[in-house]
């Protein structure tokens, strides 16, 4: 059965690849050092595949059929779709056995993600994947979440999804070590008049709760209130998915910088999982 390794979550922004130098040097050094520290753990702990939970940006889906969750089960995934991202566009290997296990077993856990053999990747996943493996050889399962188009899955539902993902991955017999990572958020505004604002007060409030593992008031946030931290703040769904997966372990904040030129609160957290006390053990108890 697979062991979860290298669990982390990071903000993503296209400019962290396309326009790194636009950020103040101290801020970009601090954030990117955090990303590298988290990514290095994935490599050093010998992950054989990585599942990256991130949000849809109208890259794969339009309003005629917009899934709340979608697992990429393909043998490979093309990306990044943004030619200006300064990351080479290519076919990134998939992990179809692991992905198919997620698609097949999550319904028994109360989740019915859609699945796709032809997911394309954008900056949301590729910036973080590239940090983990610049050679683009590590098999990837993209796990897309709706964090933009209402109605969205509730924050609590996304937390519970993480618990379910953990049970499925830990029951997977096709690898010994699998990383599950989140990418998105924190506060930011996109495509609206407030673009460029960052709500550092929200970001610190949220990160403190991840550190303490006290998430009830976060999980109860209605979307209208969360949106006061920006329409991009809905992407904390990916953070909460990983928080659910890691529970009862709590987050360690490696970096946080409100990087105005990247229009986003840029944070990184890692988790040290206790294999004896996760959701899998709890379910069997």
């Amino acid at each position: 059965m697979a062991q979860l390794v290298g669990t982390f979550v990071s903000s993503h922004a296209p400019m962290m690849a396309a326009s790194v130098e636009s950020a103040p040097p101290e801020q970009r050094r601090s954030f990117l050092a955090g990303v590298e520290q988290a990514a290095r753990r994935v490599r050093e702990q010998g992950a054989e595949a990585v599942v990256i939970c991130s949000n849809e940006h109208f890259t794969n889906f339009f309003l005629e059929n917009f899934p709340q969750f979608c697992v990429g089960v393909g043998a490979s995934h093309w990306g990044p779709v943004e030619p200006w991202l300064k990351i080479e566009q290519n076919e990134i290997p998939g992990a179809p056995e692991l992905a198919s296990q997620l698609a097949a077993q999550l319904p028994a856990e109360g989740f019915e993600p859609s699945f796709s053999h032809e997911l394309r990747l954008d900056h949301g996943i590729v910036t973080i994947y590239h940090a983990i493996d610049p050679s683009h050889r590590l098999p990837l399962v993209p796990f897309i979440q709706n964090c933009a188009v209402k109605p969205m899955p509730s924050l609590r539902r996304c937390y519970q999804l993480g618990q379910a993902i953990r049970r499925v991955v830990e029951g997977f017999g096709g690898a010994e070590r699998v990383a599950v990572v989140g990418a998105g958020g924190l506060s930011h505004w996109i495509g609206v008049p407030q673009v460029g604002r960052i709500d550092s007060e929200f970001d610190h409030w949220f990160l403190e709760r991840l550190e303490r593992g006290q998430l009830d008031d976060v999980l109860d946030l209605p979307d209208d209130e969360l949106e006061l931290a920006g329409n991009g703040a809905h992407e904390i769904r990916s953070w909460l998915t990983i928080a659910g997966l890691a529970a009862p372990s709590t987050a360690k904040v490696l970096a946080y910088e409100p990087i105005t030129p990247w229009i986003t609160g840029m944070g990184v957290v890692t988790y040290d999982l206790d294999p004896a006390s996760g959701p899998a053990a709890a379910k069997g108890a």
Partner: protein
Amino acid sequence: MSQYQLQKLLYDFLNGRVGAAPGVRAGADGERAGPDPTGYDVTQEEAAAASGADVRRLYQLGVHPVLINAFARAMGYQRTDYARMLQDLEPATEGRPRWRSS
């Protein structure tokens, strides 16, 4: 209905290639130049906003912000450019969320 069609036009443009998808107008160099509203059930105003890459008007017409962002980037606007186009359209969202200390 036409708001849906307008957004579909932009989505098809963003994801299409010249000659391979509806909604894509070719430039003189044969490259993707802009949205082509032919065949989409949009109003004249919506067609003009899309064809003219009028980000401000598209926002006012209700195009989803994530599509606004992607479309603006595809048309060569930086975020500072479209922020200037949108900045006076509405005040910042009002409210006192639970994380605000003052």
